[in-house]
């Protein structure tokens, strides 16, 4: 072997970590084109929800007793409900609440759950056992039932619904964060960090977190889908935001009461939920395949 110095690097400017992360994400997207579709559809729904007050043809609360239970028309593109309210307008405004509750509860669960998972994974031992057994019991407990009870006890306000849904998905995030924390903890660079005298907090949040963040982020798109679904389910059961606030689940609930003669009332919001949830699942699923180290090397 030649004992020359190792090949000198190409004189390229050092890429910033952000640029590297961005490139990795784009690469991930390209391996799975359905992710792009999911992202596109989801962003479109977000834009529609934000724009709702300006693009909705009617006030979502405005009742028109003369045009109750109408089919689609130029005036009411998706028809009207029992009170003669414009379904399209209610759908657009309902998207705001669905997305708001979904994003807020997922964000809260992500922050709290990941912190719990990282701490449990890092410290291990009895602490880990007790925390994770608790999380497992919570995880096994049906999320919907838990949500129902919490909302019923606290009352169906926006904040309480967010709290209830966040509580049901904290254990999932704890699990999601703990597994990679443990596998990263076993890697020698973490032991090197300890040997270099870094503090626990520094190792956990500056060395481990950046390595597991992609995984957490990917999972949160899947859990956002789940949160939106749970919110709709709560509203369908009657524990959503109080009427007349338009929520998708609530619209289905109202439509379901007239299912035998005008089933399209339930159909439109049902399809809306399905589209959003499916788009998020497409997005998260594609990203997960790209991030999952276990399936790498094979495409």
């Amino acid at each position, binding site marked *: *072997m030649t004992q020359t110095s190792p090949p000198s*690097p190409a004189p390229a400017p*050092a890429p910033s970590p952000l640029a590297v992360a961005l490139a990795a994400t784009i690469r991930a997207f390209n391996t799975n084109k359905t992710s792009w579709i999911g992202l596109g559809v989801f962003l479109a729904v977000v834009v529609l929800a934000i724009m709702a007050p300006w693009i909705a043809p009617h006030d979502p609360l405005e009742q028109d007793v003369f045009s109750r239970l109408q089919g689609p028309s130029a005036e009411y593109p998706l028809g009207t409900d029992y009170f003669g309210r414009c379904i399209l307008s209610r759908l657009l405004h309902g998207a705001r609440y669905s997305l708001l509750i979904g994003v807020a509860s997922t964000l809260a669960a992500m922050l709290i759950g990941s912190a719990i998972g990282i701490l449990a994974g890092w410290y291990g031992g009895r602490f880990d056992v007790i925390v994770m057994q608790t999380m497992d019991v919570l995880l096994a407990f049906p999320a919907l039932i838990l949500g129902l009870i919490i909302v019923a006890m606290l009352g169906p306000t926006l904040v309480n619904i967010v709290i209830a849904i966040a509580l049901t998905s904290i254990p999932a995030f704890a699990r999601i964060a703990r597994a990679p924390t443990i596998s990263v903890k076993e890697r020698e660079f973490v*032991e*090197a*960090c300890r*040997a*270099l005298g870094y503090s626990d907090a520094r190792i956990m949040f500056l060395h481990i977190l*950046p390595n597991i963040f992609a995984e957490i982020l990917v999972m949160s798109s899947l859990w956002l889908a789940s949160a939106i679904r749970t919110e709709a389910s709560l509203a369908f059961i009657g524990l959503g935001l109080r009427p007349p606030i338009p929520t998708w689940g609530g619209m289905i609930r109202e439509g379901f009461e007239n299912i035998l003669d005008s089933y399209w009332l339930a159909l439109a919001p049902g399809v809306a939920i399905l589209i959003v949830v499916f788009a998020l699942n497409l997005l998260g699923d594609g990203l997960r395949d790209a991030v999952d180290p276990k399936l790498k090397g*094979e495409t």
Partner: protein
Amino acid sequence: MTPPVLSIRSLTTSFRVDRAWRPVVEDLSFDIAPRETVAVVGESGSGKSVTALSVMRLLPAANSRVEGQIALAGRELLPLPEAEMRRVRGNDIAMIFQEPMTSLNPVLTVGFQVAEALVYHRALDRSAAEAEALRLFERVRIPAARSRFHEYPHHFSGGMRQRVMIAMALACRPKLLIADEPTTALDVTIQAQILELIKMLQEEEGMSVLFITHDMGVVAEIADRVVVMYKGKAVETGSTAEVFRTPRAPYTRALLAAVPRLGSMAGRARPMRFPMVDIATGGSDEPTETPDTVAERPLLEVSDLVTRFDIRGGVLSRIRGRVHAVEKVSFTLHAGETLALVGESGCGKSTTGRSILRLVPPTSGRILFEGRDVAALDRAGLRQMRRRMQMIFQDPYASLNPRKTVGGALAEPIIVHGLAGKAEARERVASLLRKVGLPPDAAGRFPHEFSGGQRQRLCIARALALEPRLIVADEAVSALDVSIKAQVLNLMLDLQAELGLAYLFISHDIAVVERVSHRIAVMYLGEIVEIGPRAAIFESPQHPYTKRLMAAVPVPDPDHRAIRRGLSGAEIRSPVRPPDYLPPPRSYREISPGHLVQAWGEEWDRT
């Protein structure tokens, strides 16, 4: 001349990478005669394993392409339909793999897995197949074969699993056995057993063997002929004796020069650098002995160090056993000195190193570093101490945070410990990189842009960032290819000469240890059984375990081939003991100045 069992003609195997076909093996040709053992040797990426998988046609069809001719006893394999090829696999050609721990199906009994081949290829019914499989178990010398037949793989040690793999391979009396690095994952004494077993069974069965390995010592032990591969091509083919005595290709010469040869250090007092051969010309420099760096004063004094781990289990999580990882270990290490801790898996050498740095908490004992007791330090004291004592690890791919630039990783310890501000830290990083032979502009890049050897240099640079006096090197070169290994070891020797570093060199590779250390401690089941100056240990080993260990090391010299070691079935004992176990009192005998041997009991006289 008899027709060859296997004949490979201009074999080219390509993988599809980013829609282009990239050849991994190129224009490879060689024959294997009946009863002959041919070794294919090369470093990682040389295409040696791909060659084996090409013969078996086990590469995924979707992204690989095999061209050329592969004939088994005159029958072309490549055009065979898959159903025909399936009848060849396990029947005419059998294969054993590198990783015995993952190569057996965890949810099927070992007996079933061995019998299975007989059911498919010999159409035996289940009981006949099992009876035959049991006979095979006995042939590969699995102790208590009958009672262990229906156990699952997780009950077996790595060496025993490899024996199960061999039994499976022999089931249908194949014409050719392909062994792909079958001993690489095993400890050296177990490796010796498995090599012996393969040799013996080959004689009994009269089969041919294609042996894939990276280890020139193993080649010398087992092969009749050698194919040396480099970057997908055969650079040299010849009889083992020829290749070792008069290597023609510069690459072969470089490879042989980088292989430490056990016993070659006789008569030398200090460690020696490895000779570096120019791969283009084949010319070599003269290796030199390192300067005398060992200081008078001891830097580290370890006395009666004990580290144990509890194993909990059962209903109430009671302590069911204890790993006696380190038991009453004592030694001193001087500034500028290299003390090697050698031993096989589970001997406690790594735990000793980690206990000294307090990466695992020691149970008892005293660790004096520069006169202060490490075991008694508080958090702040520990932080201070860790500036003076650093560690480098085995896996260069796992040792660097993939999300941090090299510059960031090297500057971080300097900044965290407040040794310098940001601007000065940047300058220090540049000088650290130069010190380990890397260009300063490497600082802007990420670890994945570097090769394994370069990463290990980066790890050394990071350890040096705090200007330590002692570096614990835990199997620091074990994962590297032999030529890279030699370069990194040379770097470590140079740094020792320049900075007066002390190394605690933890390794299972006895030939490397002989080359680089001043003193050696041999560990077995958590205890030091023999410690002394390198020359004393190698020239007059006393303890039976030291002798066994040395005898098991494959020597890269074909003349050693005739020496048969006999087949022992001894397994590596586990340091797990019942909770009430009390370690026996030990006494040491001084053979010559500084050469201490543990008094051993009669259990050693029997083996």
